[in-house]
Each structure stands twice: as structure tokens, then as C-alpha cells.
């Protein structure tokens, strides 16, 4: 105890003796108006746009509107502490957030301060939250895949490192689930993740953090939280702050995945700030630069070439639509900015097709260049099969007699639909994805009862793990599907079918 006291006294003494203070010179202004997270300030000559302002009492703000006599600033934090006449100091710095390895595994607010109660974060550096996106010569085309672990996405809507793939859908269609599954699937791989929660319910965030911790996925993840109870200004800077944290790792040559959940709330927060600052409203009352806001944010995702470190940021922005209306203002904006979208539909969700990906409307403009060769081979056929099945299924509903070929195609289609269903938090490795998709499109599963397909799938994975590990390893190592492998797979699948005969084989009709 006394040792502890001595230490405290010593440390205080040291601080006081070390305190070397010069006269402080500050540029100041005075608050003339304050309210709703916005302050109007006189003075502050030579203040920069987006400069951090010190309101005292540990309250900071950002200068946004520079007018003739007034500076309009948004307040980060508690604006009730600020009164008319409060002295505001300019800091001479653009708003920055701490970045570095110390952030990994932590839950922070948009200013980089920890909110998980695990103590102070040692920041390696500070990065400005706004940064010009990497230019043309620094970039390289996207060619390395991001494995989401979700069969429907990895096979038909592949995402590459450096790509921006929008996840769009109504509320309660599993948008966040896809992002979280992707983060969980990066466990033990070389992709760091940043999850930015914008205007989300704190309970939802707590659930996500607990799940990621339980799955051991926090070891490669940073969570940036601007909760629903935080001021709009923090929601507004959250994605940029998260992106700055990701950029630090990209500059180190690492690959980062960043999830913005969700950008519609970000746009709403920006609308609130803009309207309070009396910027003129445009369509749906959003300010005129809301497109630019999102485009410059998403443009910061890039795949850098080796000369510039070879790092990458892959962005998964999320947009929530109202009643499936993807032609609203913000959804169309973000669709046009991103390199493709994963479209989730509540109809499919309620039919039990989860993830509820609408394969027809979902695209990835990077396409197959970001797939391993084996997946590319099987996936090309898969897309076609799915499309044909959709068409046929519509006709088959009329109930007329169908010829054998059509019947067969329908049966395969049903099984493909079953295979593409996947539970939450159950990512599948790409090798296994290749095997199951190969099996289903080649009709190997046609003699299995449709209801039993998912059970069969799980058993098959186990079987491969236990008795055919070499096939998985070879597929993983080579990434190519050659004839020998194909034969092996067919052999093992048939072998496995033999062991589950009584349960899974379809009873012969008549």
C-alpha cells in the first residue's frame, strides 16, 4: 500500500518537475449560438475546414461551415456543456483518430476512445479521418478473393480484395449476418476486419461483440461504434474514422475488410447536420453532396500494387431499403458507386432461403477474376443451373406433366437451392464449398431426399475431414480442379452415400 502511495507521489513529482510550460498562443472565437449539436462561432480567423475545435471541458467540435462572419461547427460529444460566449480554441489539426495494432480486438467510439472497459489503447499513430483516396497508378486490379464462407456468395457473387460490394435489403433480411459471418470466416486468415456500427442499437452491437468474442473473431477485428444514443456528429464521422484505422493497416501492406453498417443511417446523420447548419436540402431533404460523401468514402477502398505496399481495403457497405425500394435516393447512389451488390429479399427470407440472396439481382462486377480456379470452374455452371431452375420452377407450378429431362433438372434445382441455404455463424471453407457445389451440379445428390440434403451436406464435410483429408488439402493447395481430383471427389461422395443409405437414399417409387 505504502509502496503504491510512494509511487503515486513520485509520479506526481516527476510530472510537476517535468512540466515545462511556455506561454500558450491560441486562436480563439466565441460561441454565439448553440443547439442540437451545432454551434455558431464568431472569430476563429484562419480556421480550416474540418479543423478540430476545442470547446474546453473535453468537448471537441469540427468546423464545417466557414462563412463571412460565422463558423458553423458540429459538436462531438455533449453540447449541453457549451454556453453562449464559451471560448473556442482552434487546434490547427484536422480531425484525427488514433490508429495502430493496439486497436485490434477493441471496441472504440468514432474518436478512437475505448468503450469496452479494457483500458487505454496505445496508438501507433494518428490518421486524419478524411484522406484523398489512392490514385490510379497506385492501384491494381482486384484478383485475390475475400472468402466470406457463404456458399451462395463465394460461388456466384465473388468478392475480391479491394472491391466494394454493397449488401442491400429490407430490415430483418440478414444483412448484418452476412457481414458478421464474413468476419468470423476470417479467423486464422490474413484479413483484418473493421466493423463500423452507425446508429445501431447498443443491444445489437453488444450481441455482435459477444458473438465475435465467442467465435474467437475479435482477435482480428476492430469495432467502431456510433450508437443510436450518440450524437449525429459521431455517426457522421464513424465510417471515416473506421476507414482511417483500416488505412493504417493497408499502408503496412496488409489486407483489411471494412463493414459499414449501415450507410443509410450515415446519410441520415449527415442530413441532420447539414440541415441544422442550414445547408440547402435537395432530394429527400438530403444535402447536395451526399453522393460525394459516400463516393469519397468508398473510393478509399483499394487494392494497392506492390510498389505501394500491396495492401488492400475491401468495403462491405450495408444499405437498408424501405419495402424493397432500391430506387430510392441513397440506395441508387450507393449502388452506382459500388462494384456490385448482394440483394437480400424478405420474401426469400420467409420462404426459408437463408441467406436470402436474390441471385438474379445480385452482381459482382469484379466477377470471376477474384475466385480460385476450382471455384470458377464449378460456379460458372451453378449460376446457369440456378437461372434455368428458376424459369422451370415457374412453369412447373402449372402442374402439367413434365418430360424426364425437365423433371431431372427440377430435382437438381431443388437440391441446389437446399445447398445454397446456410445457417448463421456457419461459414464453410472454400474447398468444401467446391466439393458440395461440384457434387450437386453434377447430379451426385439427385438420389438424396430433398429434406435430407443439408444433413447429408454436413455429414459429407465430416466424412471428408475424417477419411479424405488429402483431397481437401490438395484442393486447398492447388486451388485447381483436375481430372484426378474430380474422380476422387466422385468416388468419396459415392462412398459416403453408401454409408448413409438407410437414411438418405430416396426410396424407389413403386
Amino acid at each position: 500500500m505504502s509502496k503504491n502511495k510512494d509511487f503515486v507521489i513520485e509520479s506526481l513529482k516527476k510530472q510537476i518537475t517535468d512540466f515545462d510550460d511556455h506561454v500558450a498562443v491560441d486562436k480563439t472565437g466565441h460561441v454565439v449560438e448553440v443547439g442540437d449539436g451545432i454551434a455558431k462561432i464568431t472569430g476563429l480567423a484562419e480556421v480550416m475546414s474540418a479543423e478540430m475545435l476545442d470547446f474546453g471541458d473535453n468537448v471537441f467540435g469540427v468546423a464545417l461551415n466557414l462563412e463571412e462572419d460565422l463558423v458553423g461547427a458540429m459538436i462531438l460529444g455533449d453540447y449541453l456543456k457549451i454556453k453562449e460566449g464559451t471560448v473556442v480554441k482552434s487546434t490547427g489539426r484536422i480531425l484525427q483518430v488514433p490508429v495502430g495494432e493496439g486497436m485490434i480486438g477493441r471496441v472504440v467510439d468514432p474518436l478512437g476512445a475505448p468503450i469496452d472497459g479494457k483500458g487505454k489503447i496505445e496508438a501507433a499513430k494518428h490518421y486524419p479521418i478524411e484522406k484523398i483516396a489512392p490514385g490510379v497508378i497506385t492501384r491494381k486490379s482486384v484478383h485475390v478473393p475475400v472468402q466470406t464462407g457463404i456458399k451462395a456468395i463465394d460461388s456466384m457473387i465473388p468478392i475480391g480484395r479491394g472491391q466494394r460490394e454493397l449488401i442491400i435489403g429490407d430490415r430483418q433480411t440478414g444483412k448484418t449476418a452476412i457481414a458478421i459471418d464474413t468476419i468470423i470466416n476470417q479467423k486464422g486468415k490474413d484479413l483484418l476486419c473493421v466493423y463500423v456500427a452507425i446508429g445501431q442499437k447498443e443491444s445489437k452491437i453488444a450481441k455482435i461483440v459477444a458473438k465475435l468474442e465467442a467465435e474467437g473473431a475479435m482477435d482480428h477485428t476492430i469495432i467502431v461504434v456510433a450508437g443510436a444514443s450518440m450524437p449525429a456528429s459521431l455517426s457522421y464521422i464513424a465510417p471515416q474514422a473506421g476507414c482511417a484505422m483500416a488505412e493504417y493497416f493497408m499502408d503496412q501492406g496488409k489486407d483489411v475488410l471494412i463493414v459499414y453498417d449501415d450507410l443509410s443511417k450515415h446519410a441520415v446523420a449527415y442530413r441532420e447536420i447539414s440541415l441544422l447548419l442550414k445547408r440547402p436540402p435537395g432530394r429527400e431533404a438530403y444535402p447536395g453532396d451526399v453522393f460525394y460523401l459516400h463516393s469519397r468514402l468508398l473510393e478509399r477502398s483499394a487494392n494497392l500494387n506492390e510498389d505501394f505496399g500491396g495492401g488492400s481495403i475491401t468495403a462491405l457497405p450495408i444499405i437498408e431499403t424501405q419495402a424493397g425500394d432500391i430506387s430510392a435516393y441513397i440506395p441508387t447512389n450507393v449502388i452506382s458507386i459500388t462494384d456490385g451488390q448482394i440483394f437480400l429479399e424478405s420474401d426469400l427470407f420467409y420462404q426459408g432461403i437463408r441467406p436470402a440472396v436474390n441471385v438474379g439481382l445480385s452482381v459482382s462486377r469484379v466477377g470471376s477474376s477474384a475466385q480460385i480456379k476450382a471455384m470458377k470452374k464449378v460456379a460458372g455452371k451453378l449460376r446457369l443451373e440456378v437461372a434455368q431452375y428458376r424459369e422451370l420452377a415457374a412453369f412447373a407450378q402449372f402442374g402439367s406433366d413434365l418430360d424426364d429431362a425437365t423433371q431431372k433438372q427440377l430435382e437438381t434445382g431443388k437440391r441446389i437451392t437446399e445447398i445454397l441455404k446456410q445457417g448463421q455463424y456457419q461459414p464453410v471453407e472454400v474447398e468444401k464449398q467446391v466439393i458440395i457445389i461440384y457434387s450437386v451440379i453434377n447430379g451426385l445428390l439427385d438420389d438424396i431426399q430433398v429434406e435430407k440434403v443439408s444433413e447429408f451436406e454436413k455429414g459429407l464435410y465430416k466424412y471428408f475431414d475424417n477419411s479424405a483429408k488429402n483431397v481437401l488439402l490438395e484442393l486447398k493447395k492447388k486451388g485447381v480442379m483436375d481430372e484426378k481430383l474430380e474422380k476422387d471427389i466422385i468416388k468419396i461422395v459415392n462412398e459416403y452415400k453408401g454409408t448413409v443409405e438407410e437414411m438418405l437414399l430416396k426410396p424407389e417409387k413403386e
Partner: protein
Amino acid sequence: MKIAKIKHYAKSLIEIGQGHNCFEEIVDQLKNVEEKLAENPDFKKYLLNKRVGFIKKREALEHVFQDFLSKRTYNFLYLLIKNNKLVNLSDILNETNKVNLKNNKIKEVLVESVIPLPSEIEKTIKKIIEKKINSEIILRNIINQALLGGMKITIGDTVIDGSLFGKISRLQRKMENYE
């Protein structure tokens, strides 16, 4: 009222004053009026009352100030009354003062200290600042006990804080952030 509008009044006041070489006269008279109004809140209230007609207000004003005010000063006051801007008289005068100093390239410097500054020190400070910012200044000394010691100099938007209070608060901040 918006600062921009106050600026318009201040600017026109200066232009008229300089055009007819009676700027100081008008400003002095207006300051006088402002003081008198502050001393007699009832009269001020009467002048600000929107239900009272302009002619009555004019008569009252003329009755009170007689010919202590020049015609231009009267006209300016009438304009303010007509535009319901009499409330902002002190703001307008402040702004006028500021703009006038700016036009003459004179800067106002505020020196806050705990005790009144001895005149030699005041002169030295004036000299140093004038050299530093390269313009003429008017120095005003304000007594502020809260500073505890040292002084705080305000030049426009720039604050040079050499007070004991400022130092202690910076030390406080440093210790709070110490790990």
C-alpha cells in the same frame, strides 16, 4: 440581429461620418444617447414599444435631447427607430468602433492582469506587440482576479495566455492524460 446587418449600419455610419467630417461627433453623440437610454430604462422601453407611433417617438426624442444632437445623429436614430433596430444601438456602436479601427489599421489589444499595469510595463508591452504585429495598437488594461498571476493578452482572435491560471489548467490537463 445578424452580424452582417449590424455591419451594414456600422459601415454606413462611418461612410457618412467621414464624408461630412463629423464621424467623431456623431459617434460621441450616439454614445451619449446610449448611456442616457441605459440610465432611463422606462424611456428606452417607450422608444422600443412597437405600439407607439413613430411621430410620437420622434417628438419625445427631440423633446429630451433638444439641440444637443446634430441633425445627422437625429436622422440616424430615426432610421433605427423606423427599422426597429434601436435595440442594437450598442452593438452597432461596438461594430462601428471595430470597423473604424480596422480602417485606420489600428488594432485593439486587451491585456488582462491581476493588478493594474504600471505605465512603463504597459509601454513596453505596447512597443513589443506593435513591433510583432506590425501595426499600431490601442492597449486596454482589464483587471481579472481569476488569472491569479501573470497576464493574458488578446489581439483580435489570438490569445496569448501567460497567466498562472492558464499554466495550472494546462498542468491539470497534462496530469489527467498521464498514464
